[in-house]
């Protein structure tokens, strides 16, 4: 009898392990597909909007890394926040003795998302290897700074988008639309020109999530863009705060 129990639990563990392996594999495939596409394009072209293959690797690696960390922090919480707002169950979160925006943003993590950190790091390291490791210490520090502003922008856009549920509760597929949009962050920001450029660098600034950090690491970030991105991430963060406060007030005012 006990042996049978042992066999069953062992089988279950193995099944979980298989699950773990396949989750890692699907993460690898998910990050690998755009890589294959870009590698194929570079077979026919030397550069895309001034980006060499090594630069593109660093850009996509940076995007993958930021995306993995932010998904790890936010995916469960944005989901829950949206349903709390829509079903009027936010009171529990509002009565917590911590800052309510902080609480609803980071209450629980989704650990399996961290798998994608590894392919992200590998892409960056391989890209750097291809450039012959010609990096300055200052560039690395700058990289960390703009990696952080990238995370702030990722957070602010998603949080504001979710918080809009206070006023537009009917939009069911809100999350998927964000996830579709944020995928555009892995492309060079140079492709967003004209009206689209205005949208993706100002209103929904996904173009500045991964691009500034990657350019910084290669020493190609202009001073204008650097200052703009620093200010923009600050403004977006303050805006997320402002919209959250307004939303909570509307929610409490409605007796929710």
């Amino acid at each position, binding site marked *: 009898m006990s042996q049978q129990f042992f066999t069953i639990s062992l089988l279950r563990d193995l*099944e979980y392990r*298989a*699950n773990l392996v*396949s*989750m890692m*594999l*699907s993460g690898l*495939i*998910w990050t690998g*597909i755009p890589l*294959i*596409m870009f590698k*194929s*394009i570079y*077979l*026919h*072209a*030397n*550069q*895309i*909007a001034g980006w060499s293959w090594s630069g593109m690797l660093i850009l996509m690696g940076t995007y993958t890394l930021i995306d993995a960390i932010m998904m790890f922090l936010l995916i469960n919480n944005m989901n829950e926040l949206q349903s709390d707002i829509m079903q009027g169950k936010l009171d529990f979160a509002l009565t917590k003795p911590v800052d309510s925006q902080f609480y609803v943003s980071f209450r629980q993590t989704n650990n399996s998302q961290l798998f994608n950190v590894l392919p992200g790091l590998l892409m960056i390291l391989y890209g750097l290897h291809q450039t012959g490791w010609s990096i300055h210490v200052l560039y690395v520090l700058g990289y960390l700074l703009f990696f952080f502003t990238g995370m702030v922008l990722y957070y602010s856009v998603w949080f504001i988008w979710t918080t809009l549920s206070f006023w*537009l509760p*009917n*939009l*069911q*597929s809100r999350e*998927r*639309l964000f996830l*579709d*949009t944020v*995928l*555009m962050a892995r*492309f*060079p920001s*140079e*492709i*967003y*020109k004209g009206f*689209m450029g205005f949208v993706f660098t100002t209103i929904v600034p996904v173009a500045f999530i991964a691009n500034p950090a990657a350019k910084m690491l290669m020493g190609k970030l202009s001073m204008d863009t650097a200052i703009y991105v620093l200010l923009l991430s600050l403004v977006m963060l303050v805006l997320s705060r402002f919209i959250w406060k307004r939303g909570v007030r509307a929610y409490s005012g409605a007796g929710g």
Partner: protein
Amino acid sequence: MTNNTLTRMLKPYLRTMQLSWQKGLEYRFGILYLLLEAILPITAMVLLWKTIYESNGTMAGYTFNQMVTYFIAGRLINYLVLYPMDWKMHEMVNQGTLSSLLARPVDVQSYYFADMVGNRIVNFVLGCTPLGIIAILLRNYISLNPNYVELILGIVAIMLACGMWFLLSWAVGCYVFWTHNLISILFMKELIVMVLAGGFFPIDILPSPMVHIIKLTPFPYLTFFPIHVLTNTVNSDEVMNGLMMQAIWLTILFILGRILWQIGMKKYVEAGG
């Protein structure tokens, strides 16, 4: 027939139309979402390729307009072809609905085939609206050589691709009889099949040895081939060849699916399902 009786006859239909219109207005954000969901990825792709083509004349034989047309036609064909038979099989075994289906005097595969066909019609109507809008917005970039023969052959190729996708998903879905946790496998399969089918980008931009190998598999006949027939970018010999390959793969996948189902069924019944 007097005007009065005509009005009375049409009244219920007009009322239904009015109701569905009101319902549609209620879900206007849903429609907005459908539009954005269709427009955003295509916009990103168009902008990316536009930049790439600024420093390159052609890419693996595609001009910029042909590339844009490829992506839009690819979206349309994916709307029409994708049917999650494997996910449905996963659901039906794990939620136990298979047993009640088996008790009915229907062939399970034919039952789902009929469901798939009905579903295609809904998808056609739902998918064509946003794609039509995109096509109008991007009309300057689209290169089509309208030709009735090619159009009919394109529709035939899409219909065969629908059948192939259904039978392929069926064969993959039969794996559910051997494992209960299929979800991550199905997710991976979807991504890999989409790449090999040319659903993410045209497969012929890949290195040529890889293209040769991929063309021996059934996958390019799911998306890549129908796109080329529909956009009239292959010659008639290649079209006939491709249609024949589709028919051959359809037969192979059908037999494979039947065999796997039989073996799986035996296992399922023995397990007392």
